[in-house]
């Protein structure tokens, strides 16, 4: 089994070394690829200095394009499982085994690491949780799949979905849309509890007013997926 961790980063110079060293400590059996989305800080030079495996996008594509580049890499190098993990230290490499398990046992095609199942660790602000719950409800309504932590970027997919996601992956704020795409491609989606940390430095890619944009866009995305099938 070849397993690849995809770590999309944008200006994570303060976090990247810690993230990779924790990854190597906790999951030495996996390969990883850092996808640098045209950072303007020292992310690339740190990767170079430490000999990390990385690809570097020549222009900024946003999180969706970065993650998709990782899936393309996984496809090109014939990986069996790909795991997405944020480059900001929110996701703990300890839980890699946990998100892998349902796929290794062929219980699921897509596994999402969820911070809301155990309600431990960083839980995000109330406003965001409300938004997340609404999206979760919409996804359940339209695809029949119940996922609580729809914005979690900690997820594992098998070979089938490496191929699908490398062909088609949503662009800005892609996480909930990727779940819908997964459901409509007949993927078995499973959530496993993980504990997330509050990001150590830098800022989240979603700011308050953008939540509204996010909600509308995702709602329309769900609707159009519904139309296609």
């Amino acid at each position: 089994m070849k397993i690849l961790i995809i770590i999309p980063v944008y200006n994570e110079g303060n976090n990247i070394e810690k993230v990779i060293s924790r990854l190597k400590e906790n999951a030495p059996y996996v390969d990883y690829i850092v996808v640098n989305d045209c950072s303007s800080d020292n992310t690339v030079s740190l990767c170079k200095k430490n000999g990390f495996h990385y690809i570097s996008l020549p222009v900024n594509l946003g999180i969706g394009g970065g993650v998709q580049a990782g899936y393309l890499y996984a496809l090109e190098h014939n990986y069996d499982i790909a795991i997405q993990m944020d480059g900001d230290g929110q996701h703990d490499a300890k839980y890699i085994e946990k998100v892998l398990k349902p796929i290794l046992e062929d219980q699921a095609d897509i596994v999402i690491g969820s911070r809301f199942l155990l309600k431990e660790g960083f839980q995000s602000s109330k406003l965001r949780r409300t938004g997340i719950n609404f999206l979760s409800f919409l996804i359940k309504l339209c695809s029949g799949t119940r996922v609580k932590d729809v914005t979690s970027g900690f997820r594992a997919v098998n070979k089938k979905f490496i191929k699908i996601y490398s062909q088609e992956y949503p662009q800005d704020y892609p996480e909930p849309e990727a779940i819908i795409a997964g459901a409509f491609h007949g993927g078995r989606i499973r959530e496993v509890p993980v504990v997330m940390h509050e990001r150590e430095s830098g800022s989240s890619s979603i700011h308050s007013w953008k939540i509204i944009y996010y909600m509308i866009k995702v709602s329309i995305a769900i609707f159009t997926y519904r139309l296609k099938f």
Partner: protein
Amino acid sequence: MISSSLRLFLTIGLTLYFLLIFSLLKRRTLSLKYTLLWIFGGFGMGILIIFPQILNWFIHIVGIKLASNGVFAIILFFVLIILIYITSIVSKQSDILKRLVQENALLEKRIREIEDKMDKESAPEDEKKE
């Protein structure tokens, strides 16, 4: 009824419109593929000018009182269609661009690795020569 002065001005406008389109086409600043819709629209307008009865029939059905308003409505609708078409072109191109960027990044990694390997291989040889 559409007035003859409106018809005159529309004719002049349409002539300028076609002159512009075809001169841009000739200079290859427009590709014919994406200009076809504009040309068809222009022909449609021409037909309306030559046969104003069509316009009268249209405004009567839709319930517009002034013929000039009918002309505006038709033009506006046509422009909206073209804008949607252009948005679809932009979307497709950004998809293509995205894929190019990603492939470029993957290739860059391969070249980087090959170069590193070559550096390592050539380094001992240089020492031997010395």
